[in-house]
């Protein structure tokens, strides 16, 4: 009874966490009316992907990928996903910056942050 449950959920809890976070982010992106909240959702979504990358890079009992006395025989954590995610974080920050500046402009022009009201305001012009 507990064994398949353990196999499916507990032993891979990191992936489940990533999936749950991703769905929360997607939900906020799609369902939230406030534009800023949408961007928060986008950030949660992106963070979930980062978490996914970082957690699959983990090697149990591995050390930091630095050349130690043991030489190449030491058990290292895979450093590549970390490097990739460093890039992806930078990308995420830039997207957030562009999105927030767009929201500022939208607010200056239309005076609303709510998506439905914004659509009404756009149609009125």
């Amino acid at each position, binding site marked *: 009874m507990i064994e398949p449950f353990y196999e499916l959920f507990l032993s891979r809890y990191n992936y489940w966490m990533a999936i749950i976070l991703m769905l929360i982010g*997607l939900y906020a*992106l799609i369902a939230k009316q406030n*534009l800023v909240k*949408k961007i928060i959702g*986008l950030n949660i*979504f*992106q963070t979930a*992907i980062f978490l*996914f*990358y970082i957690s*699959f890079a983990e090697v149990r009992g591995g050390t930091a990928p630095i050349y130690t006395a043991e030489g190449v025989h030491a058990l290292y954590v895979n450093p*590549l*996903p970390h490097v*990739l995610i460093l*890039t*992806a974080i930078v*990308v995420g920050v*830039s*997207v957030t910056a*562009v*999105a927030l500046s*767009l*929201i500022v*402009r*939208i607010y200056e*022009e*239309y005076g609303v942050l709510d998506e439905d009201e*914004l659509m009404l305001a*756009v149609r009125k*012009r």
Partner: protein
Amino acid sequence: MTIINHVPVLLVAIPIIASLLILAAGWYDRRFCYPIALITILSQFVASIAILLQVLDGGTIHYHLGNWAPPLGIELVIDSFNGFILVAILLLAAATIIYARRSVEKEIAPDKIVSFYVLFQLLVTGLVGMTITGDIFNLYVFLEISSIAAYTLIASSRKPHSYVASFNYLILGSIAAGFILLGIGNLYVATGTLNMAELAVMLPASYHLATIHSAFLFLMIGFSIKVAFFPLHLWLPDAYAESPSAVTVLISTVMAKVSVYALFRILFTVFTTAYIIDSFPVTGFILLMSTVAIVAGAVLAIAQEDLKRMLAYSSVSQIGYIMFALGVANEIALEGGLLHILGHAVMKGCLFMVAGMIIYRMGTSRLSDMKGLSKTMPISCAAFALAGASMIGIPPTIGFMSKYYLVLGAFEAGLWPYAAVLLIGSLLAAIYIWRFIEIAYFGDPHGADHNEEQTQTAEREGPLSMLAPMVGLAILCLLFGIFVEVLMQAVGPAALLLLGGA
């Protein structure tokens, strides 16, 4: 090593430096920005032709960045497929930058012109990078460079609606990029490599894994949003219709085509036909959706009142044609699809340039304001008619040749009903192109809802620097159609390469 061996990396590196140069020059004097962008893009175009000739002559070029060999380092790969795409997109980028100068002066606030050219340059750089990279994560990074530049460029118009259009595109584009990133992660988990060629070698061993299936679906959906494949096209009409004319030309031709390229590259050379036809049969579904896209896009285009919006929906329909080639996945259809990538870029570029010209002269893109336009802007209307004929697929234009190959490919695969849909799509295209022709050539400028001021501002053609690239592209529609054999020398090997031969 001589400089010629380093051309692949210079294609990406020089424009990045140039974009910084534009920024620096902009501080000193705004007038320096345009020449730098012009020279960079034109020299990129010349270099891309040199590279394509080199590839057709001596086979695929592999360039190892920083001299690190592939599994460790990133490599740039140029084969007959992306060499062809590279020339096509840089041709369009060169035409757009020539066209952009006067159009931008009119449509963009003077203090934003410096950042406009910086972003324009970065967008082209990102797209060139996406085209020539051989590393799948590198593809993602270039995709994001081009996307962020595109979001900002769309919002650079003076119309406040463009902010909303850009925001909606940003949301969908970021979801797409997130999916692509997840797909890449799954591929990496399954194989431990990010190099495309190595992925293609290692993937067949794990075609049965759920990890690969989910990676495939994430990548497929992500890129489908990027290419605006129906029904994931919702960002496209606003983004095309609200952005400045020059930006519309660039994103509708160059950016859309590079996204299509990336999809082809991943489906055919990373996953190979063995996966998308046998292990995870998805081509039938793509075929079905592409026919829906062809018809729905065209019907929506007919319903539009705004010229740019009509052309935007027409893009949704034409993307359907290219995806149709992907769904049929035999050699003739792929040749048709690749021809259509170039052909659609050329004709849609020309059509959007005409729309931009009309906006430049009249300040409007409403179809009902264009009655009798052919009398005041005869050259623009003639260019529209020629490119429109190509869009419909009237011989001997490029549009006819690509659709001819697509239909032949569908026949060869025994897909008769689908071939019929292609013809229906052409008929619908004839309707929406004809709407403009009828209004422009046979509309009475002194009709009931005639607006005095607007016809006065449209008393003549636009400036030569806008006219020349537009007419050039219209003539190319015709020339490419007549001398299609020249193109087939590049397209033929490219289609074979996609199917795993050559």
